[in-house]
Structures are given as C-alpha cells and as structure tokens.
C-alpha cells in the first residue's frame, strides 16, 4: 500500500515538473499584461463614462418632442433612444410616439398617450417607456424638498417563517433545517429584532426624513453574510429613496450565487491543462515508456491526476477564504472538481486530436457548469436544489446550517459519478487503445466491453455455471453503475422541459426518460455483442437482457432517496421518478404489483433491445426505439394512475 502511494507520488512529481514547464513565466506575464491592459481600458472607459454593461442600449426608438418633459425620461433610459417627432414613422424610424397632453411649457402635463407600432417590439417599447417614466418620477421625487409628500409611505419589510410550517418533513435532515429556520425567523414583533435575513429593511421606519438612512442599511447588508436578500434601497434609485415602495427588491440569493460561480471558473482552466496532459501521453506514443514500467495504469493515472486535484483544492481553499466560505464550501466543491477532471479524462482518452479534445472540454464545462449551477439558483426555493453541491456552497455563504445527510446527498452522487468515469477511462488506458485512432463512439464501446466477461451460447442446462453467473453479474453491475448518470440525465431533462407547458412537457419527458433508461440498460450489451464478448445468439441476448434489467431494477430501488428529498412533490418530478414514489394508501397486493411491475417492464423492454443488439446496429436502433415506446407507454400508465 505504502509502496503504491510512493509510486503514485513519483508520477505526480514528474507530472508537476512537466506541467511547470508547460505554462512558463513568459506566458503568465503575457496573460497578466493582457489583463492589465483590459483593466486599464475599462478603468479609463469608466472614468470617461463610455462604459456600461447595458446590452440593451438604444434598442427602442421613441419619437418624443424635445420640449416635452418626457424627453428627459427617454434620455435617461439606456434602452430608449429619442428620435425627432417630425418625420417619424411608426415601425420604420420609430417604435413609439409620445403625445403629451399639451401644456409642455407650463410643466403641468395632464395626460399622456403613446402610440406604439403594432408589433411585439412596439409593445416591448411601450412597457420600457412606462418603466422609464416611473424611474424618472422617482428621480423627480427624490429631488423634492418635502420628503413626506414625495414619499408618503415608508415600508418595513420582514421575512418570517410560518409557525405552522409549509415544508413539513420534505427535506433530509429535517431537524437541523427546522431549527435553523426557527432561530432565524424570530417572532416577527417589530422590524429590528428578527430575521437575520430581512434585516436590511428597518432603516428609517421611525425617522421623519428619508435622507441619510441609507448607510446603516448598506452596512447591514454587507454584514449579512454576503446575502443579497431583500434589501430596501437597492442600487436602482440610489440611497435617497430608502424605504419607499419602489425600492423593495425581491429575495434572490444573487451574490451568493455569483460567488458560488466563482468556484467553477478555475475548473475550466484546470481541465484544459489536464486534458492536454492526458492527450499528450497519447500523441506520438509518448506514454509508452511509462506503460512498460512496472507501474500499473491506476498508478499512472492517479499520479497524473493528483497534482490537478491538489491545485483544485488549493484554488478552492483560496477562493473560499476570499469570499468568506468555510470548510463546507471546500468539501462541496471537491466532488465537482473531481467530476470535471474525470469527465475530461474520459474525453481525453477518447479524443483523436486536440481539436476534438477542445470540443470535448467545452462540452464538459458547459454540461457540468449547468448541472452544478442551475439547481443552485433555486437554493431557497426547493429541496431539489440539493442535487448540486454548489447549493451547499450557497448555504455555507449564507451561514445556514447543513445536516450531514444533506451534505452526503449533495456530494455523494457526484463523487460516485467521478469515480465511475475514472473507471471507464482506465479501461482503455492500455497500449492497444491509447495509441489508436478511433471515433469516440467506438472507443466508448471498447471501454464498456472491457468491463464485461464472456458469455457463450450454452444450453439452459449450464445456466448455473459459476462463470456464467459471474459474467451476468458483471452485466447487472455495469447497469447499476449507470444509475447516477441516468439520474443526472433525467434531472437535466426535467430542468430543460420545466419551462414548457405541462401538456407538452409531460409526454416529451416520459419518452425522453424512457429513452435514457433504455439506453443505459442496453448500450453495454450492444458493446458486448459488437466486441465479441457475448456470443451472438438469442438465448444469450435474453440472458444478458434480463441480467441488465435486474441490475437496473435493484439499483433504482436503492435510489428511493429521490422521494426523501421531495423531488416527487413537483408534478414534473413525479412523472420522472414516479415509479419510486407514491405507494402509500394502497393495498399490499397493489404495492407488490407496483413493486414488481417495473421489474417485468425492465426485463421485457431490455430483452427486446438486447435481441436487437445481438444482430447489428440497424436492428439495435429499431429495437431500442421499440423498447423506448414500450417503456414510455408504461410510464404514461403509471402517471395517469397516480394522477
């Protein structure tokens, strides 16, 4: 063991020495110079007032009389650009024409009318104009001397938890979450005492003037664990209007999210270097000397990966220290970093050239960043957010308590996924695969086939043959290992289809999920037949199909945690994971039927796909489609029974 560790460390040292030579001082200096130039230009621009992140600058043209008081409102709104009324034609040179009700010289405008071009752009321009006028009014009022008349209402906003909770027992580690909520909510008597979160709002409820109370609020806000909670007096209209209704901003953990994103940024650079290093081994047979040493592939890969894991840990710790995160942030980001590296490792093992690797790396970054980031947006909204470890980071930054169960649920699947991906890539870390050029799909089949054991076509009398049982066991195991990826793919499907109306999203989702599961159950069977591990016979196909189905069934039942985190509370979630939820209130017979119906379904559908896989690719595609339809029909039945 110690010997092995020493070997791994030796490879790691060698990798560090090599990588250190890769990005030399000159390159770093050049990068630094680029950043400095950018900083200088931006700073200069800011000073000159030419810089602003208004991507919507001047997108709507508003025809308004230069004398009209509305001209100022249009002038001050970045998205609107004023055009002269004379010669303005709706839909051609202007999107909106403003007619104020005369009296533009006296300053007292009675009414205003707008005519927008009859398009969606015209509507959008009208809405934008209304907002611009509102903002203009706020500014006008802020300049008033009589603050009571300008802002007659002062708002104190507080957030409290209901004593009879809405969120009964839907989360893992309920105890901690519950007590955290209680201590936080206070009793809501008065704005000052309670809610650590909503503390930003009590600024001037007692004060007569609206001025000057902006400061304590801002201070509160930054002190509040970097949480962008409902601060009254946001940046919109400046600190003068603190406490007026217009300055209420809805709760959204924006700052925490942004900070959580900062943790992901270095990963993208890290996997670029790591991917290059792995692919470097494979080009020009450079990795061959290492392979012929007594080092095992596991040692080599572990050693080559170690420095990057260490770098990720270091950077994460630095960022955590900088943004005020604790050890929890580091623990939460580690599995994400490992998954980034694992996916890149597989990509680099499969890619044929650096060009291909670039696309694989971009794909990995995009997919993993969305998978980690998007659920975290809903941190305070639903427990589903916990599927991403970044949610833990957001919790950590907000200073909320996280139970061990939650932490495990959040980080476990990702860590497991990383381990499995490394396993997949290691399968082809051998001479005959590393230095050959094959399309990615065929490499994937190779990597899967490596994990299978031969199944010969033998009579049913030999069914109890130990080798055969073991071979079928490996089929089931491989299917079971696919579960985390199925889970991830289904979550992504749920997330992307979430925005569609239910009538569209449910059928599409049912078919997508059936397809994902059928592929997970049969793709390695296809690999086995294609690579000659399995004999091409119907009996074999039935045997491996059933084995795969059993593996999937057992693993799926083990993931009943899905229910525990309340994913099935969502309608869409119920459609996706319906088969593991909602058994209460049924007779034992029905429960047993519900329990074993999926097994029958999986067995039948997978056997169909396996028989196709044992023929050739065309047959496989056809039977896979058939199996998907069968599965989707079954899912649809389940969903309609469950309602």
């Amino acid at each position, binding site marked *: 063991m110690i010997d092995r560790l020493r070997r791994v460390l030796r490879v790691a040292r060698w990798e560090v020495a090599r990588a250190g030579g890769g990005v*030399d001082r000159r390159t770093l200096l*050049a990068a630094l110079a680029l*950043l400095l130039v950018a900083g200088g230009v*931006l700073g200069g621009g800011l000073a000159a007032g*030419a810089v*602003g*992140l208004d*991507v*919507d600058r*001047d*997108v709507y043209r508003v025809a308004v009389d230069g004398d009209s*008081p509305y001209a100022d409102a249009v002038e001050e709104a970045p998205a609107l650009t004023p055009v002269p009324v004379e010669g303005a034609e709706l839909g051609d040179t202007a999107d909106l024409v*403003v007619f104020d009700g005369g009296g533009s010289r006296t*300053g007292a*405008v009675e009414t205003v009318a707008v005519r927008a071009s009859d398009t*969606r752009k015209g*509507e*959008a321009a009208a*809405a934008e104009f*209304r907002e611009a*006028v509102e903002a203009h009014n706020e500014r006008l*009022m802020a300049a008033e*001397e*009589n603050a009571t008349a300008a802002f*007659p*209402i*002062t*708002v*104190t*906003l507080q*957030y409290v*938890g*209901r004593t*009879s909770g809405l*969120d009964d027992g839907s989360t893992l580690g309920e105890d901690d979450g519950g007590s955290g*909520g209680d201590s*936080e*909510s206070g009793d809501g008597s008065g704005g000052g005492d309670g809610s650590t*979160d*909503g503390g930003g709002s009590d600024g001037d409820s007692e004060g007569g003037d609206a001025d000057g109370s902006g400061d304590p609020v801002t201070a509160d806000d930054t002190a509040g664990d970097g949480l962008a909670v409902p601060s009254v007096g946001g940046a919109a209209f400046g600190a003068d209007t603190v406490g*007026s*209704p217009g300055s*209420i901003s*809805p*709760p959204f953990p924006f700052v925490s999210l942004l900070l959580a994103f900062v943790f992901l940024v270095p990963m993208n650079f890290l996997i670029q*270097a790591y991917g*290059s290093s792995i692919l470097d081994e494979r*080009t*020009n047979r450079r990795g061959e000397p290492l392979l012929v040493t007594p080092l095992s592939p596991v040692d080599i890969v572990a050693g080559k990966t170690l420095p990057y894991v260490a770098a990720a840990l270091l950077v994460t710790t630095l960022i955590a220290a900088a943004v005020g995160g604790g050890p929890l942030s580091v623990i939460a980001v580690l599995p994400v970093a490992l998954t980034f590296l694992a996916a890149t490792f597989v990509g680099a093992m499969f890619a044929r050239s*650096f*060009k*291909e*690797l*670039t696309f694989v790396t*971009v*794909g990995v970054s995009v997919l993993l960043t969305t998978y980690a980031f998007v659920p975290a947006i809903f941190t*305070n*909204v*639903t427990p589903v957010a916990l599927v991403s470890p970044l949610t833990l980071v957001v919790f950590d930054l907000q200073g909320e308590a996280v139970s061990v169960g939650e932490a495990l649920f959040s980080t476990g699947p990702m860590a497991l996924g990383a381990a499995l991906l490394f396993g997949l890539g290691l399968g082809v870390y051998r001479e005959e695969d590393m230095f050959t050029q094959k399309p990615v799909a065929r490499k994937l089949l190779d990597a899967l086939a490596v994990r299978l054991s031969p199944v010969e076509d033998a009579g049913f009398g030999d069914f109890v043959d130990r080798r055969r049982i073991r071979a079928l066991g490996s089929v089931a195991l491989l299917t079971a290992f696919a579960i985390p990826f199925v889970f991830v793919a289904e979550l992504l499907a749920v*997330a992307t289809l979430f925005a569609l109306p239910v009538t569209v999203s449910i059928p599409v989702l049912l078919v997508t999920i059936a397809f994902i599961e059928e592929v997970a159950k049969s793709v390695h069977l296809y690999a086995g037949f294609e690579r000659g591990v399995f004999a091409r016979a119907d009996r074999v196909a039935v045997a491996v199909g059933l084995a795969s189905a059993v593996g999937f069934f057992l693993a799926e039942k083990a993931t009943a945690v899905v229910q525990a985190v309340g994913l099935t509370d969502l309608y869409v979630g119920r459609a996706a994971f319906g088969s593991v939820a909602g058994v209460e209130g049924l007779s034992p017979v029905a429960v047993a039927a519900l329990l074993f119906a999926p097994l029958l379904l999986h067995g039948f559908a997978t056997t169909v796909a396996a028989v196709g896989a044992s023929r050739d690719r065309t047959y496989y595609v056809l039977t896979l489609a058939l199996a998907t339809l069968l599965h989707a029909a079954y899912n649809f039945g389940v969903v309609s029974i469950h309602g």
Partner: protein
Amino acid sequence: MGEGEGGATTAGKSSRLTIAGRELAGLRAEKTILLAVAIQLFIAAFSSFLVVGLVSMYDPGALGGAEVEVAGAGDAVSDLERAASEVEGASVTPYEDAAAARLAFDRNAADAVVVVNRHDEGRISATVTAPDATVETTVIVVQLRELLRTYELNERADRAAYLSESPLPLPERTGSSPYFTFTYTVLIPVLVFLPVFISGSLVVDSITEEIDEGTLELLRVAPVTLGEIVDGKALAAVAIAPGQALLWLLLLRANGTPVANVPSILALMTALTTLVVALAVAISALAPDRRAAQFLYSVGVLVLFGGATAMAGGPANAVARLAIDSADATTTALVVAYVGIAAVAYAGVRALVAENGFES
C-alpha cells in the same frame, strides 16, 4: 512576366484552398462540428429556460398571473384596499388588528401581512410581513411592491399641492413579455458570438498540433509559403462561422422571432471571427506550446469580448440593435469599422508570421 505572376497567384490560391479543404475534411471526419452545434443548442436552450424561469419568478403577470392574498390591518387599511382594486393579482382582506392579520398569515389564510398606519405630519408607515424562503416568496414580494407603489401614487396625488414639481402621468400599462428584450439583447448576441470563439479555438489547436507533431515542417517542404498555410487554416476557420450563426438566426425566425438585417449581422460576425482568428494565429506563433497557447487564447478572448461588450457600441449591442431593427447610421459605421479593424489585424498578423515563422 505577367503571365508567370498570374500562374503563381493561381497556384497560391489553389494551395490555400487545398489547405482550407483539408482542415474542413478533418472537422467533418471527427464530426466535431456537430458537437459544437449541439453545445450551442444546449447553451441556448438552457439560457432560455433560465430566463423564462427567472422572469416568471419576478414578473408573475408575464406568464399568466398569480393571485396574492394580503391580510391588511391598521388605520389606513381602506386606502390600501382601494389601491389593491387597481392592481391585478393582489387582493386585500382587512382584519381588525395586526395580531388578527398575523394569525391569518400563520394559518396560511393569507400570503402576506401589511399593517398600514397614519402618523403625525402625514407620513404613512407600512409594515410588511412576507413568508421566509418558500417557493412563492419572490412572487409575493413582487406583487406587494406593485400594490404598495400604486398606494404610494395615490397618496402622492393627494399631496400634489405640497410638491414643487408633480410627477409625470404614466402611460397605460401594456402587456409585454420581458422575454422579448432578452431574446434580442442577450440570446441573439450569444448565439452569434459562440461560433466566433469556436473558430479561434480551432485555429489555435490546428496550428499548435502541427507544430507539436512536426507536420508543419513537412508542409514547408511542399511548394507553399508559410503565409499561404496560415491563409488556408484561417479561411477554413472563418468559413464555418457565418453558417452556424445563420442557422441560429433561421431557427429563431422559424420560431416566430423575426431577425432584421441578417446580412449586416453576418458581416459583423465574420469580421469578428477574422479578428479572433488573427489573435489565435498570433498567439500560436508566439506561445511556446499548445497549453500556453490555449491558456493565452482563453484569457485574450475573455479580455477582448469583456472589454468590447462593456464599451458603448460594443459588438453585442450592435448585433442586438441590428437584429431588433433599431439600427441607424452609427451602427452601419460600426460594422464597417469592425470589418476594417479585422482586415488590418489579420494582414498585420499574417505579415508577422510570414516574416518570422512560428516559434517552436
């Protein structure tokens, strides 16, 4: 003499095209371009999902409203009710005192509590209690803000005599989805610029890979100049960009989002691709190896686009204005300027490389 020169030019041209063709054939064989398109599709789908999701949280009215039930109390509650009647999606039920309203809130009979009281000197205080961290909090707070703003407008109108300048009357509310602005100002620029980065990255990979494997030396034995090799590689990378952008624009059009000024947008993005490709060639020529080159390229592109987007009249804004059909003479001048800058940059880099060769 003239004839000989003509022949040389033709030979140069055909060798450039040969190299470009070889690059494209490599992309086709690896099917990487399909992966690139898939990635772009994924980004587009997901950013739309995000925005639709967030917009529906922030602007409940935008996606078929939500009704917020407010428990009101205090001595000015009737004014609050009056304001609620003018606001869609909010209703106020008066309770006799704050405690009763709070009880209703605790029993889930109300989404929020608002206690409004008049004070001396005419000021009104509103104490709002919203539920903590549930699904609906954002929606509720957005509706409450709308309600309280309407209330404020009413109260302000009553005190107009004390104001030196009265607020401007608001135009009528129109139904418009914020998604419209997002489509033109964020989604279209992102989709138009993604192929630009991909093309630059391709050039970095292509050149550094040749240097790395020593095949560039082989190419130099062939009767082509270094400048022609660079031209060929750049041509292939630039050629694939506008097609991808056009694909997205056509897709959006098919989805009912008309995009104006497509030729100008394509000209602008081709110019930017040329600029980024020039940057990529320069970096591959200067950086010692592939890793350094990709690193510098990523940083360089970040800097270039970060800076350009933040500037007034940046390319993102120019594309948005072209697409939404709000372009004016300045936008056209901008497109021409970008084309000019790109041409100068590429010519400069090409001359530099042809003169000094690649370092390796």
